[in-house]
């Protein structure tokens, strides 16, 4: 009976701990100079160092989408410009934020959880607290801030590179010219789409960094615990990205 009750209450307990963690991360900071420096460092690690993998994933996504749209849609009834009309909005609305989110859930999420988890099991977090520092603000606020600042930037880069990848393949494969691609993209362009994509990137950035911080900060059980937290951070970030993706699409589109 007690076990069943604990099992039933577990999601609420986790949600409560997660909410308190995020709340404490942004109240009573000690020294803004320290946080500014930490946030800048995290922006470099989370954002700048992720550019190569995000660029690679985005370029291939755009390229593959171009080939597949050509295969599926281009016919005597539809002009080749439809490729631009599908690829560009797909990158802006879905592929850009979600592919970037998945890549970063693995790269950034796992890294954050492993860093904080190791700090937890080696008593480095206890050392920060024992010194009189707010370890939650010190460790978590800079990572979340860096996430919500850098993810939208990476999203913009991913969209540009993805569309560029699509255009390159379209030219190299002889599917259509750059002008036709751009013409197709412009035909169905909605000014709201980039805002929607940016909103997703902002939310995904928050999800990945905050979920991973939670997993890492509350790590227990030595090296095995760090491994478990790291895996859970990547998996749970992906799950929440998918859920948020649907919720945002239903509510904003």
């Amino acid at each position: 009976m007690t076990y069943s009750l604990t099992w039933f209450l577990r999601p609420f307990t986790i949600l409560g701990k997660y909410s308190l963690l995020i709340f404490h991360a942004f109240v009573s900071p000690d020294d803004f100079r320290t946080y500014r420096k930490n946030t800048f460092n995290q922006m470099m690690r989370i954002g700048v160092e992720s550019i190569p993998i995000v660029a690679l994933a985005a370029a291939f996504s755009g390229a593959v989408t171009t080939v597949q749209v050509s295969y599926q849609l281009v016919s005597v009834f539809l002009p080749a410009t439809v490729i631009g009309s599908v690829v560009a909005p797909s990158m802006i609305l879905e592929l850009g934020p979600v592919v970037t989110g998945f890549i970063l859930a693995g790269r950034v999420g796992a890294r954050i959880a492993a860093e904080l988890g190791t700090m937890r099991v080696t008593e480095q977090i206890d050392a920060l607290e024992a010194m009189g520092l707010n370890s939650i603000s010190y460790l978590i606020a800079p990572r979340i801030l860096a996430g919500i600042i850098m993810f939208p930037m990476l999203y913009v880069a991913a969209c540009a590179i993805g569309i560029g990848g699509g255009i390159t393949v379209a030219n190299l494969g002889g599917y259509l010219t750059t002008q036709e691609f751009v013409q197709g993209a412009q035909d169905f362009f909605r000014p709201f789409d980039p805002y929607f994509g940016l909103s997703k990137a902002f939310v995904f950035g928050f999800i990945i960094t905050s979920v991973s911080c939670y997993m890492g900060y509350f790590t227990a059980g030595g090296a095995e615990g760090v491994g478990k937290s790291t895996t859970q951070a990547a998996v749970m970030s992906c799950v929440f990205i998918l859920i948020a993706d649907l919720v945002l699409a239903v509510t904003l589109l």
Partner: protein
Amino acid sequence: MIRLEHITKQFNNTVVLRDVSLDIPEGETLAVIGRSGSGKSVLIKHAVGLLTPDEGRVVVDGANIHEVSYKELRRIRRKFGVLFQGGALFDSMSAFENVAFPLRTFTGKPDGNIRSRVEACLEMVQLPDIGKKMPSELSGGMQKRVALARAIALEPKYIIYDEPTSGLDPATSNHIDELILSLNERLRVTSIVITHDMHSVLAIADRVAFIHKARIAWSGTVDDIHRSDHKSLLDFVRANEYVIGEQTSASEVSLHP
């Protein structure tokens, strides 16, 4: 003064501390001894509020640290220097940066002053030339000494040492003991030392508390151990390599190396 009153703590239905009370007056060095897993580290984590007791309270300089605001708790914690069992050095920072960290975070002193203080602290732990090295490049003993330098950087009122000499060679252990004694004498630091090393206990402690079966089973001065007939305490002391002489019964235990 640090006062632990009737502390009880359990983890997953295992009682680690049961009704433990200790007073550590200012300027005193208390050695807490006991077998591995007896709850010594749990006890000292209560002293700085890293753990909250299930029952009882911890009073530091008249303030119940579990009733004050988090901001006040952090202010109280700044009176402490804590040497963790594994050192707990920040592995993303060099040895110098580790020692400089509390100074940079809390004092706002110019870089030149911080540099001199860090160098002095590293000198005190006999590691003057390792400032640029990362913790992963240091041996376990060196990491512990750098951690000690970090713990004393702010000249705290209270210092908690969790196994300060474990993993160190005898000469370095003696040096650490001397350093603890010197800090006590020069700065009138109040210290709690968790240790298995009876040689250290004999060298530095004013008072000893023995934890056994989740309770303070015995406490007294070092000299009182001679007169004690507490079997578990004497078994613990007798098992220490520094105890010499023929020991056929508990009453014959000699405590001098």
